[in-house]
């Protein structure tokens, strides 16, 4: 399965699909992969992105303006898979679009498209029984979010339920770029290491090469989302090129353990 983390740290890139349109998203994703992204999170735009800060909110609004939907994101996943066999593909969604499509149908189509894993932002592990069964039946990796405020028992449960990797949220709050990364992330990764051998990806707020390297010292993978989406927003007409440049700058000096 392509959810492998050979590089130290691996780079997980998030994009909001359909921002500004699906063809651009496809070009951006392929450009990010060529520049060194190891896993792509294909974000499904949602009308009520409660876990997201202003950058991804704006991207979602732009994507929804022309009706980007989950089915289209899965088609996009299949296209990306054709061009990139060894890149990890994660569908990153709120729960309602998946429920609306139907959990079974979603899993089937996603697997068929070559998706490796799924992260549902607003589905806590405590409520995820049915979802996890469906994921397992279709050989998809459920990825759950652990937060600095999660108590040990919950951290353990999240680690046990996750496949592929565990997503450690670097701080309390919504997605978005931050100047300074809190100590929270390091502590949370330490707590996760005690209960799991899965790779740990740290995300929320990481936007530059310095932060990437800093987090890379203690995490297996680093997720960059809002900074990518912001790059897309600021470079109309040359989104893919700009994201490629950004990714190369971010990962400069990274060790390749492949």
């Amino acid at each position: 399965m392509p959810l492998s983390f050979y590089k130290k740290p691996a780079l997980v890139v998030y994009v909001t699909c359909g921002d500004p349109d699906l063809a651009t998203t496809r070009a951006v994703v392929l450009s990010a992969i060529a520049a060194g992204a190891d896993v792509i999170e294909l974000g499904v735009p949602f009308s009520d992105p409660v876990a997201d800060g202003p950058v991804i909110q704006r991207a979602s609004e732009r994507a929804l303006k022309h009706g980007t939907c989950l089915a289209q994101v899965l088609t996009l996943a299949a296209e990306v898979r054709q061009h990139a066999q060894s890149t990890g593909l994660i569908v990153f969604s709120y729960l309602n679009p998946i429920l609306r499509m139907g959990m079974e149908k979603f899993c089937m189509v996603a697997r068929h498209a070559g998706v490796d894993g799924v992260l549902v932002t607003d589905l806590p592990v405590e409520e995820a029984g049915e979802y996890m069964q469906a994921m397992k039946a279709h050989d998809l990796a459920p990825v759950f979010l652990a937060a600095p405020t999660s108590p040990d028992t919950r951290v353990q449960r999240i680690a046990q339920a996750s496949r592929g990797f565990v997503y450690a949220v670097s701080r309390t709050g919504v997605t978005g770029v931050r100047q300074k990364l809190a100590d929270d992330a390091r502590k949370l990764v330490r707590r996760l290491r005690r209960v799991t051998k899965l790779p740990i990806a740290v995300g929320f707020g990481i936007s530059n090469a310095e932060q990437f390297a800093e987090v890379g010292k203690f995490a297996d993978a680093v997720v960059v989302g809002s900074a990518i989406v912001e790059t897309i927003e600021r470079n109309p007409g040359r989104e893919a090129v700009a994201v490629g440049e950004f990714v190369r700058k971010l990962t400069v000096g990274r060790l390749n353990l492949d």
Partner: protein
Amino acid sequence: MAALEELEREYEKAKRDAKFQRRLDELLQTYAGRPTALSFAQRLTQKLGGAKIYLKREDLLHTGAHKINNCLGQALLVERMRKRRVIAETGAGQHGVATATVCALLGFECVVYMGTEDMQRQELNVFRMRLLGAEVRGVESGSRTLKDAINEAMRDWVTNVRTTHYLLGSVLGAHPYPTMVRDFHRVIGREARAQILKAEGKLPAAVIACVGGGSNAIGIFTEFLKDEKVRLIGVEAGGRGEGLGEHAARFRGGSPGVLQGTYSYVLQDSAGQIANTHSVSAGLDYPSIGPEHAALRDAGRAEYVPASDAEALEATTLLARTEGIIPALESAHAVAEVVKRVPKMKKSDVVLVNISGRGDKDIGILRENLRLD
């Protein structure tokens, strides 16, 4: 999740704590003005010529609506959790005003999120909140109404969860909110049931309440759940049409889905995006409904009907002129259902209507729509 678990634990402890209950009861009596009156609507009954109509007067409470019941309850929990900062969402502004009020009373910092569309149409309540010392933050995203205010409050909460309590104002959101908020409003039905038994010597044939998230309705319904002959009728916002986006009647146009941590009926499109809603009343203008209402409806214990903007406006004038009571536009939806239903009922029947709030806050909208001057 950790904060929800903390809240649940604290609430379960408080429920069993006689001191907490005493303090809450005392505040409800000496500060909020409970028990509220049950008024026989004599002239409205005569005019409609059917069942006898009784009004549960939550509009007489301090701050002008039932919302204060829940705010006082949660505020006492905030004290127990030793938090000092309270955030809330508001649609019509009634919950925001009630939250700002209890924060002033107990000395908490208070931030209220409100869609900018609602800020415009409920201007008076925005000023009241500010006067009470709360910071009102306008929400520009999405439809700029209640749903978006909840999104923004949730974002604030996950960011500041260690110091902040989210004082959610309806029977919505993740557990334990729907249960807890219901419990704090059960006092409405408890009082009303005893009052109507005293006045009429029998139970009402129907209990009618408006349903946005559904807190006032669940508050008056719960005490009657076991009385199987009492019909429970929730009135949703029928808005200005039947198309998606023109109303907030979740049981007419909605389907099961998840919004803001609640699995319930949701107005959504075929791709699972949440639909915009419309209602003349900001407090009913929300695309989902409290999950317990969904359960009551699926079990056939309660029924839900829409009332349109026009019907609600007409009912407002009617109640004002027959009873001297200006209801909130939300509550006017319940009155609109009374107008439709009561003439078909027996004169010996009794109907109980929850007047969940008063209409002072709506004067601007009423003036625009009724053109009396």
